[in-house]
């Protein structure tokens, strides 16, 4: 059913990422149960739901950190369910983490260069000598990183250690590192968590620019409903591991099951 909806959304583009009937149990706890969703190429799809709904677990399965118990995940029609995280990254899915995962002792630039790792071909010896192809490759990768630095306005922080940066800036650097991978699909796990209003607006702008200017498909987990409703093409709602709704932001906001589960009865309640 979601296929029909999403195809109607954006012309006839085939979905770039599909998740079909995926479940994951941790001991006796069912984190995700029989969830399906489709991410049309070039869109921003948000996954929302109360705490413990299984959003991050879902993302971890897509990026290969968890292996689903059942179900299939495909990227561009090829199953990636059983691949390792590094293989999935090499196929074009990049992600950021809810709790920032940067090398805090390295500079912003070095963190971005690490994001280029999947594209690097030079061997240990040529790299160590910084000779011939290795040298050319390094320069080409640096140029791509500079592009991202400009894109995310990190020029003044290039040579700063990431550990010394503010939370909002580290989130931005993490986005940059994910972009350095030149992904087809970008998974963002709460990119605006813990940010103030200004930082949120900046980040929302960057996410939109990533989507529109670079044509990268975005899957977003976010708690700020204002942002989600503003920038998403589609929203998928999870509750206690199950999918309870999906559609355009307007449809989701109106759906009774969603209001009941997400806004009505959970503890935080009514902060839409």
């Amino acid at each position, binding site marked *: 059913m979601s296929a029909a909806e999403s195809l109607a959304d954006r012309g006839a583009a085939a979905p770039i990422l599909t998740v079909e009937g995926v479940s994951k149990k941790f001991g006796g706890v069912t984190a995700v149960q029989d969830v399906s969703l489709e991410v049309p190429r070039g869109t921003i799809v948000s996954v929302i739901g109360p705490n413990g709904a299984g959003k991050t677990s879902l993302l971890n399965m897509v990026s290969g950190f968890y292996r689903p118990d059942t179900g299939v995940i495909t990227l561009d029609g090829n199953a990636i369910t059983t691949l390792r995280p590094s293989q999935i990254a090499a196929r074009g899915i990049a992600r950021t983490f809810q709790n920032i995962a940067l090398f805090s002792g390295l500079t912003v630039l070095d963190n971005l260069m690490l994001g280029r790792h999947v594209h690097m071909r030079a061997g240990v010896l040529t790299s160590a000598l910084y000779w011939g192809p290795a040298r050319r490759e390094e320069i080409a990768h640096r*140029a791509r990183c*500079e*592009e991202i*630095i*400009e*894109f995310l*306005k990190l*020029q*003044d922080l*290039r040579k700063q250690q990431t550990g010394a940066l503010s939370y909002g800036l580290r989130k931005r650097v993490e986005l940059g590192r994910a972009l350095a991978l030149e992904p087809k699909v970008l998974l963002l796990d709460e990119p605006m968590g813990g940010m103030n209003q200004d930082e949120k607006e900046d980040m929302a*702008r960057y996410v939109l*620019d990533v989507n*529109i*200017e670079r044509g990268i498909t975005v899957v977003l987990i976010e708690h700020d409903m204002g942002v989600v409703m503003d920038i998403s093409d589609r929203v998928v709602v999870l509750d206690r591991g199950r999918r309870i709704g999906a559609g355009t932001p307007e449809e989701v906001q109106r759906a009774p099951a969603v209001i009941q589960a997400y806004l009505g009865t959970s503890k935080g309640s009514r902060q839409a």
Partner: protein
Amino acid sequence: MSLVDSPDTCTLPKLLARNARQWSTEPALREKNRGIWQTYSWADYHALVRDFALGLASLGFTRGEKLSVIGDNRPQLYAAQMSASALGGYSVPVYQDSIAAELVYVLNHAEVSVVVAEDQEQVDKILSLKDQLSNLRWIIYDDPRGMASYARYPFIKSFPDVVEAGRAFGRGQAGFFEAELSKGGADDVAMIAYTSGTTGNPKGAMLTHRNLITIAEAFAQSEGIRRGDNWLSYLPMAWLGDATFTVGVGLVVGTTANCPESPETVQRDLRELGPSGLVAPPRIWENMLTTVQVKGDDATPLKRWVYERFRRIAEQVELARSEGRPVPAGQRFWYAIGEFLVYGPVRDQLGLRHARTCYTGGAPLGADNFRFFRSFGINLKQVYGATEASALIACQPDREADPNSVGRTLPGINVRVDDRGEVLVNGSNVFKGYFKQDEITRETFTSDGWLKTGDAGFVDPRGHLVIIDRAKDVGKLSDGTPFAPQFVENKLKFSPYIREAVAFGDNQPFVAAMIAIDMTTVGTWAERRNLAYTSFMDLSRKPEVAQLVGEEIAKCNATLPVAARVQRFLLLNKELDADDAEMTRTRKVRRRFVAEKYAAVIEAFYSGKREVEVSMEITFEDGRKATLESIIALHGDAPPVTARQAA
């Protein structure tokens, strides 16, 4: 013989054409992009200007039309201004942090038909005001980022599109550009610079090519500026000084203008570049000094000891030099060692190792700060200027720098002081008048044609000009003692904890001041004392902070004549802000406006109240307004004698 006397070099774009012929491969502009300095040679620059000008012509831009640039210093924006000039148009740069109402006023008043905006942010700003801008026909943007969806607006074009259109237009009309260029004369207006003005609406000062070229010649001659010198172009393009120092001097002498990567990277870019000179307002010099001090404090004990020891030697040497005393041989020896160990490395860190001349202007720089830089071998000098006088009137010669005067008038400029103490200027740097404001223009000139600067000052026995205050602000205390508020404020602002000060006292028994604390330094001070605070407002209400500022004021009072001492003060709970019209965009207090806005405060100062209820209108960046109600405590007491008089 001046360049303006020859028909081939009498306008700025003609100079550009000359430079493209003479020095075609030498660097004219540089821009740091993606971490690498990209160079435009004079030939590149000229070609860009020619093509963009032809592009403008293809969009229907004709002689006498106005083009505005809005954004950070970028080669494309400089080229756009030059293109407008080449076609006989005027450039009207505007401050990119202007609020909507100011932009609408300036763009409408100047009848601007083309706006060249740096990026999406600026385009959005103009777009939101489009309905109110009746003359605006085209918006041209430089940075394409985020602009893909703007193709639906027929009046928005990208910079490369216009350049491309210009090339096509040029192929059809050979010789068009050269013909337009040759029509330009020295007395055509090159630029309308809107002065934020400390009173009323901004006024558009019309500067001619003659103004900008002759002042650049005078400056280059007296300061020994050479071809190939590097300058950092980081001060706002809307400030006329940028037109003088970057555009004018660049074209006349052949210096290279370097545009920093972003406003945040200025300090690092400065160090990379090591420019031949630097023009900076006192605020930037103060920041540099703070950086040096902070780094000094973080160093290891040995390094700290070395630094401190050589700093003191430098101080003594500089004091002797400035007083004209001979420096003892021992001190000279240690100073030479210090140059190697401390002064040279510090200059290098600041990016001033190759700087032959450095300038501070716009407001006084504290004497201690001024001497610090000089003692470390930085040739820092005061300059004085006004928008109406092409940004430059006087400058200190190398060997006569001191923190009190603003130096000697530049060649070709005459200064006299009238009987009321106002500084008058005459010379080819004096502007043509305010755009569409003949009445105000007439009032700005004396009957014999000298420009009234509005500054009160005098010429000291050496022949240096000394500026005291704005002439209209100089008042008298109620006992008849003359009172120059700016003089008091500047002394107060020399304290690192005081960011802004507004002094009152005209027709009053004593001097009182409103203080805005410096959030950074006071914040650090509070943190060191484990004093928790949340915001500027919270911090400014702390009794400890009031005590700190009280002590700073006491120190400052010790250097002031008894009558001018600050007796009472309060700490403002918000910073003075240009968005609230309390300051100009160049951070000068709009005294009259502030006095009206804070009338209740002034009344409370002189009626002996301990606190005052203030209701302030604040303006958000998007132009929305809100009212802030608060109670502010007043500190200090009226001096006993005057208190009795008041009672």
